[in-house]
């Protein structure tokens, strides 16, 4: 990221603690530019979802709190805003695991995404979502819970677009999807990005994420351990290794570690 194009979304030295006891983020810094996809990679429990919650203001739902750091949108701090205020400011999150409202109809899901907007604007946006995915129009009156996994994810993303967000936060959008659905969802993400919406994509699935993204961050136990342009990360042997975990030559394994630590214990 060059200094000449200031970032749209900027997270600085963010620290998050859950239950006043568990430190989930230990000071992460990342930036999302005005356009394009930024990927946030890392294993389970690394703090990816926590980072998104901190940005969209959902930490209090999980008994978590920010202890230090900044979250800014175009230079304005978001921390004082409640979750719905951040949505109005232009930061919209699509939660992990296709969190559609299963009891509501497809159309109502979209309408709920536009709560508080004028009736006309809502109608137009719903129409545009239907035009994008005619299958949603066909099932507009059905309970959203009856859609297939891929359709639910598409609906969730379209619902997020109802606010015309500046930046869209996607939490593991490919989780549990069939290969065909993964293709559709990644196509949608590319299109959104081309339409000028910045995207922060959280994924375990490194290959898809790095294909879509222009820039990537790797998170481990609450810290950014690696970041760079996506093509560089893709080439990086460490990234493959990080995800596959095939021990590097010369790296100490746990068996040796055990002997080493045992010895230290003996002495102490």
């Amino acid at each position, binding site marked *: 990221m060059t200094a000449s194009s200031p970032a749209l979304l900027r997270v600085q030295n963010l620290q998050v*603690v859950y239950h*006043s*006891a568990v*430190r989930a983020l230990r000071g992460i810094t990342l930036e999302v530019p005005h356009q394009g996809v930024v990927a946030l990679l890392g294993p389970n429990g690394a703090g990816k979802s926590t980072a998104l919650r901190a940005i969209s203001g959902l930490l209090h739902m999980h008994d978590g709190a920010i*202890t230090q750091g900044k979250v800014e949108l175009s230079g304005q701090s978001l921390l004082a805003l409640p979750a719905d205020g951040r949505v109005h400011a232009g930061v919209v999150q699509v939660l992990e695991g296709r969190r559609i409202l299963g009891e509501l109809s497809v159309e109502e899901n979209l309408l709920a995404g536009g709560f508080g907007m004028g009736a006309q604007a809502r109608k137009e946006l719903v129409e545009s979502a239907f035009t994008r995915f005619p299958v949603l129009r066909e099932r507009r009156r059905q309970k959203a819970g009856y859609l297939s996994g891929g359709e639910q994810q598409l609906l969730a993303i379209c619902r997020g677009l109802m606010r015309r967000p500046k930046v869209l936060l996607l939490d593991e959008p490919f989780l549990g999807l069939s290969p065909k659905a993964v293709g559709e969802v990644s196509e949608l993400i590319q299109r959104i990005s081309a339409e000028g919406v910045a995207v922060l994509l959280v994924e375990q699935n490194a290959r898809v994420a790095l294909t879509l993204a222009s820039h990537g961050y790797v998170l481990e136990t609450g810290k950014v351990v690696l970041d760079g342009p996506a093509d560089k990360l893709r080439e990086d042997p460490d990234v493959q290794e990080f995800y596959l975990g095939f021990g590097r030559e010369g790296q100490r394994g746990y068996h040796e570690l055990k002997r080493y630590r045992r010895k230290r214990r003996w002495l102490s």
Partner: protein
Amino acid sequence: MPTRPLVIRYEDDLKLFPGLWQRAGVLLTLSITLAYPWLVSTRWLTVGNLGLVAIVGAASLMVLTGFAGQVSLGHAAFLALGAYTVAVLGAKLGWPFWLALPLAGGVSALVGVVIGAFALRLKGLYLAIVTLGLVFLTQHVLLAYPEVTNGLSGTAVPMYWWFRDDAGVAASLSETWVVGGVGFNFERKLYFVFALLAAGTVWLTKNLQRSDSGRAMMAVRDQDLAAEVLGVGTTQAKLQAFGVSSFLAGIAGAMFAFQQQYITVEPPFDLNLSIQYIAMIVLGGVGTVFGAVSGALAFTFLSPLAETVGGALPLVNQLTSAQQATVLLSLVVVLVLVLEPLGLFGVWLRVRRYFQAWPFRY
């Protein structure tokens, strides 16, 4: 804070009062208990008796709700069953109290286990409402058979001492005895009987708390699924909790009947009574026997005090004295729940957590 005494054998760890401080506390409690009837007026002796009844009742609710986590609004029903059992056995059949008392526990425990079996699959709110229904059903049954219970007009609760002697006459416990120049009137006799029963209840529930059976109940309360995977039978643990709790509640109800000497169905055996017992265990802190005892005593002794305070407050003094006590105690309970749900025990945990991590906050 007194430090833990040096423990060399695991047996020592299992003692109820392992340290010097605890033993001193027991001694103090014992002397106060023994001296109390001679230090206070009859009015406060009655309050003391009711406090002892409340200890048994609160400890029994603590077993069900505090240990096993089964929220019950039906405590009044079990108390009523115990009370009416001794009343009927005494008034209709002339049974002495010491024979009727365990039966009161037995009848109540029987109903408790049956209800427990019905309610096994119910959780939280559903259980609360079913137990609330139990209060109404018990009231209905008690009123529906006036030939046994005297219905709405209520029934006397005689308290015989010895099983009929040769002449077929039962000596009543209400006669005053003089032992070595010290007069034991009815209230004082009742006090010592109740003190023994309360101490026994505390001992039993403490034993439950430190034993495997009690731990199994708490496991069901905290994490029922994990408990099952550990080999804890949730059915068994819940039924045991219902059984022990309703047995003791029956005893408490019987004690209450002895104290009142004349009982009716409603009041006192209605939803409000259940709520009062819940207030006791909430005030004391849910989950410990100490909480039940302190909550019960605080509640019974604060009620007369609350009436005094309430009389001095504007608006509140328009209420009846019982309502004044309810208002002030409700206020205390609501504040405790909103600000510190674990009661005083929670404050202690917070302080300790802070110092354990000191000087780091996380």
